[in-house]
């Protein structure tokens, strides 16, 4: 390269690039600040939200302290605010709902991906997704009109006979109660679990399936040993989303769980969850009660946040391994 072309090039660089850079830099800065603004706005809303709920519940925390978490009696009329029965009912109804919904949901997702012909696939998938579109109050009505009689006359007596009335199938077959709430919740969270795990499984490379078959695996071996483990992180995500929905579900649960805040003795017990108690008691609450209900809201938020954080950690760990 001779002297003149070199100087020409350097002059062009000197005159052109700063201008180009400047123009791009300005539009970049605009986007960056807009996005930062949105991020700050949402963070502010979240903080204000958490602050106001904690603030509202503060008198209850200072007055009752740990009783809110460990007290076994919830009786707002006499200013007794033991939250343990509500926490237990919330956790138990969610766990039992998962017990029903996870196997059914995963099975459905596998069948949708690997067994059904394409036309049936579409029909079945859209039916499952329709389940998600039904309002929870309708699930509640269905629980009351259809499931209560069925539970009290058929299922619960049968379970009681089968187990000889032993825990967790002890007590009177009332129909309404924790078991019914779990059943309704299971149906409600099924679409979430099916839709997400189906997508996760469908997104796995086709090669995995064919690779395993080419080693002489049977179809069930492929599903159990290759497909499910490979989709594990996404499936855990699906389950935790379902759990989050079940923990916070309000209307359907309060319609079928019996609305009686007592320590659960069996799955047949009537009960009340954190969410259903807040919804039913808020309208007629005294100022003291309002603070206690705010405390329940804080507990519920911590519970759902913990489920989410736990699931995220699992997803991140397995995700890091499989990527």
């Amino acid at each position, binding site marked *: 390269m001779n002297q003149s072309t070199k100087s020409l090039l350097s002059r062009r660089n000197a005159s052109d690039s700063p201008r180009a850079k400047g123009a791009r830099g300005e539009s970049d800065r605009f986007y960056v600040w807009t996005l930062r603004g949105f991020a700050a706005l949402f963070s502010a809303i979240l903080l204000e939200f958490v602050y106001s709920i904690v603030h509202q519940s503060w008198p209850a925390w200072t007055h009752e302290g740990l009783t809110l978490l460990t007290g076994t009696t919830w009786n707002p009329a006499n200013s007794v605010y033991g939250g343990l029965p509500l926490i237990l009912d919330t956790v138990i109804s969610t766990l039992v709902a998962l017990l029903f919904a996870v196997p059914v949901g995963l099975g459905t997702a596998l069948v949708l991906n690997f067994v059904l012909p*394409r036309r049936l696939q579409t029909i079945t998938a859209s039916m499952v997704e329709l389940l998600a579109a039904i309002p929870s109050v309708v699930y509640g009505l269905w629980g009351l009109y259809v499931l209560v009689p069925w539970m009290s006359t058929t299922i619960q007596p049968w379970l009681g006979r089968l187990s000889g009335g032993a825990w967790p199938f002890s007590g009177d077959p009332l129909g309404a109660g924790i078991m019914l709430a779990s059943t309704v919740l299971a149906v409600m969270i099924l679409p979430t679990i099916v839709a997400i795990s189906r997508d996760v499984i469908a997104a796995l490379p086709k090669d995995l399936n064919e*690779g395993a078959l*080419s080693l002489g695996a049977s179809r069930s*071996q492929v599903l159990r040993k290759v497909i499910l483990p490979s989709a594990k992180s996404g499936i855990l995500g699906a389950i935790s989303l379902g759990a989050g929905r079940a923990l916070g579900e309000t209307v359907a649960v309060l319609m079928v769980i019996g609305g009686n805040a007592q320590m659960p003795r069996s799955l047949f017990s009537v009960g009340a969850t954190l969410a259903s108690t807040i919804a039913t008691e808020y309208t007629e609450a005294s100022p003291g009660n309002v603070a206690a209900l705010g405390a329940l809201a804080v507990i519920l938020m911590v519970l759902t946040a913990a489920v989410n954080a736990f699931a995220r950690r699992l997803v991140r760990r397995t995700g890091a*391994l*499989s990527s």
Partner: protein
Amino acid sequence: MNDSLDAAIQDGAVVGEFVTDPLLQLRKVNVSFSGRVAVRDVSFDVAPNKITALIGPSGSGKTTILRSLNRLHDLTKGAKVEGDLLLGGVDIYKGGIATMLLRSRIGMVFQRPNPFPTLSIYDNVVSGLRFNGIRKKSLLDEAAESALISAALWDSVSSRMKAHASTLSGGEQQRLCIARALAVEPEILLMDEPTSSLDPVSTQRIEELMTELKNRVTMIIVTHNMQQAARVSDNCAFLLMAEDRAGELIEFAPTSKIFHDPSDPRTVDYVNGRFG
């Protein structure tokens, strides 16, 4: 069967280089998907302990033929394989052999390395044996070591068998897939463009590996890379897509003949790079 073999030989379709009986025979094989013919009347023989290459432009049915050999088309709705596909004289589609057993006798290596992502290197290698019901640790250990040695991977992974397969490079992952297939001790290994996603150095290692493995296993390779076919294969099948988009076998011959003295003018054009 002998009649159709004679007829095929007279057609000029079957002229391989054989020292022993063929291991795999294809006679008038047709593959169709929901009525659309993808491969028509393909006949050739696969000699034991040789590498047979399937070459031809895209759409000529190379991979379709390969996948019919271990019945992977069974997964595709509407797929139909007709004609005779004989493994040691037994038709693999006519109830002579169970599909799972067939697939452990005819292994496969895919275009993209596909180790099981959640499993360790060790578990990947022995996965085929476990699918086939082998549980004994000493047997699995032995098989894993021997398969990894055969796949020229033992030296670099023997100290980290518990590591995830995804920690390996692309070329290593592909050799892991070869080791995984070899661990089941198949008679035939199908290779569907095994180096198309790899860099030149990794490609060379896989090609060297194929030559080393010839005394253990018969290989059938689909490749877009004519130099690769010329370098590694003993026999070569050249396919082309006909007017109606069905793949047809144009010429089957020893590789040296295909590349230096082909009978069909279309083969001449293809190996000289005039199309495809």
